[in-house]
């Protein structure tokens, strides 16, 4: 038996999660796989395409249940995206599923041309993105993906924070008539929303109201912002927490509202500080003339510190403790 991966949450963070009533769910990736299987059972036109990635994509049960609706291409990500595009061009609702690190780097040209430029309704799923593969090193990290994909025209980019957003993102992607990319991590996630919450592509979800500091976060970092907000609330600091599951289209009105109504803005992402959510928010705020104390929390332009996802998050301040400290510093 191998030792369990270090927890993303310190005992204090776990206690805070319990205090504010968060329940630990499954990995967003597992939610994706279950949702896709459910949709595919009802719609034989849904096809999953994998590059020897059905295990890492949690699609083994899908493959067993629906062997005619899964296409294996072997370890060949360029081919994966080309085939996914060709299937979509011929009427299939195809989902190309591959680790985010390979999918968005090796086959970037296929994403740009075969999917986005040709405008086929394909869905690309980046699995175990960010530093989900933490200790495997930089070859297996995707900290560039949002930057490069944002720079490509005609692509909806979704980064769900919890199981609810993950399911909704897949439902939206399955309905979409244009290209969609969805980014998933593989750590079990706390639920952030009520089952009746409203999810809409292009609209931020408010996880917590407050007017002191706005945390604008995305993906697996949102929960850390929420825990920091809980921690700060006990010290009289009220934070707003927005989940920006939709990196493109971006909810500029929600970002501007946060910038105008709060004393400071902190963006949080599992991505390099260049070209991701933080710079997108900065562009929205600056061009509207909204100037508040502002920090981008993400990965600096350096070789990423070795360690598991939890170690790396803590090292760069993506934790209840780190984000609370950052908020206090900005408010001083």
């Amino acid at each position, binding site marked *: 038996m191998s030792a369990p991966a270090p927890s993303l949450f310190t005992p204090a963070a776990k206690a805070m999660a319990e205090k504010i009533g968060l329940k630990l769910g499954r990995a967003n990736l597992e939610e994706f796989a279950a949702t896709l299987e459910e949709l595919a059972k009802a719609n034989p036109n849904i*096809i999953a395409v994998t590059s020897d990635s059905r295990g890492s994509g949690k699609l083994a049960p899908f493959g067993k249940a629906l062997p*005619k609706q899964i*296409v294996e*291409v*072997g370890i*060949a990500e*360029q*081919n994966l*995206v*080309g*085939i*996914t*595009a*060709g*299937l*979509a*061009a*011929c*009427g*299939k609702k*195809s989902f190309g599923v591959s680790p985010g690190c390979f999918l968005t780097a090796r086959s970037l*040209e*296929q994403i740009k*041309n*075969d999917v986005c*430029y*040709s*405008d086929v309704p394909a869905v690309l799923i980046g699995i175990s993105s960010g530093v989900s593969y933490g200790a495997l090193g930089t070859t297996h990290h995707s900290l560039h993906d949002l930057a490069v994909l944002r720079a490509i025209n005609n692509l909806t980019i979704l980064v769900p924070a919890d199981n609810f957003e993950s399911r909704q993102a897949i439902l939206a992607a399955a309905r979409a008539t244009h290209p969609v990319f969805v980014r998933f991590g593989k750590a079990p996630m706390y639920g952030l929303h009520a089952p009746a919450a409203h999810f809409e592509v292009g609209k931020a979800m408010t996880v917590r109201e407050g007017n002191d500091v706005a945390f604008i976060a995305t993906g697996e970092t949102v929960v850390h912002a929420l825990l920091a907000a809980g921690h700060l609330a006990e010290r009289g600091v009220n934070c707003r927490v927005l989940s920006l599951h939709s990196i493109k289209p971006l909810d500029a009105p929600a970002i501007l509202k946060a910038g105008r109504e709060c004393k400071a803005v902190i963006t949080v992402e599992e991505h390099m500080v260049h070209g991701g959510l933080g710079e997108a928010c900065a562009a929205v705020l600056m061009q509207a003339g909204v100037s508040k104390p502002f920090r981008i929390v993400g990965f600096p332009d350096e070789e990423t510190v070795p360690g598991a996802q939890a170690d790396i998050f803590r090292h760069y301040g993506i934790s209840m403790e780190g984000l609370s400290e950052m908020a206090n510093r900005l408010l001083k």
Partner: protein
Amino acid sequence: MGKAALSHHALALKSIHLRRRTLEAIYNAGAGHTGGGLSCLDILNVLYNRVLDVSPETFGSPARDRYVQSKGHCVEALYAVLADRGFFPESDLKTLCHYQSHYVGHPTRHIPGIEMNTGALGHGLPICVGMALAGKMDSAHYRVFTLLGDGELAEGSNWEGGLAAAHYKLDNLVAILDHNTLQISGHTRDVMSNEPLDEKWRAFGWEVRSVNGHDYAALTQALTEPSPGKPVFIIANTVKGKGVSFMENVAKWHHGVPSEAELKQALAELDAAEAKLQNA
């Protein structure tokens, strides 16, 4: 549902007309891929006027045959063929490469008759594998064709697509190689040797057919003969710049644009060839 069936003689006359239109379009635009356009023109002529089950009226039908031009840079020849086949007016070609014209230097789906946006090399075959797989899943009878350049084969993605097509026994897929043995900087054998191509593709599990890429009968047979359980790789041996004496087998015509005098001379050669054919 939308198949043309021209005689050899009619195809030969049409090829001259299409060469004219290709050269005029490139001359008017001041840009284009002359040599490769002329080398693949007879292949396109046979495809669209004999083999492909597609027409302007049936282009929206899910049952149509698909053609994806992987060597997208030779789009002027494709435009000439599509215009002649009635997908759009020939006069549209006057806007080639103009501001706000969708007739850009590589195929895009804005143009009637174009299936996919191509131009970056090594993309067509994987896309066609996806299309052929979709056809198999739907038990559809359409066939999928792509045209590759010989220089293009240095892109590794072709070989990824090649593995997958044989693995899935895609006998509804045909890849045609415009084997003109030249690319932008010279002979393909000097830039990056890729022979023996027949043995390579056979080893990849494909049915390989080598033909003269300017012979209508041979092309027609290679493009239509079934190959149960195997995708077909056609090595179409062609002459870059075919049909214009001073352009044939000269690498500089890869994307050379004729001057007014050169265009005149080329058109005169084509006129002479046409007269000879008509009197034959």
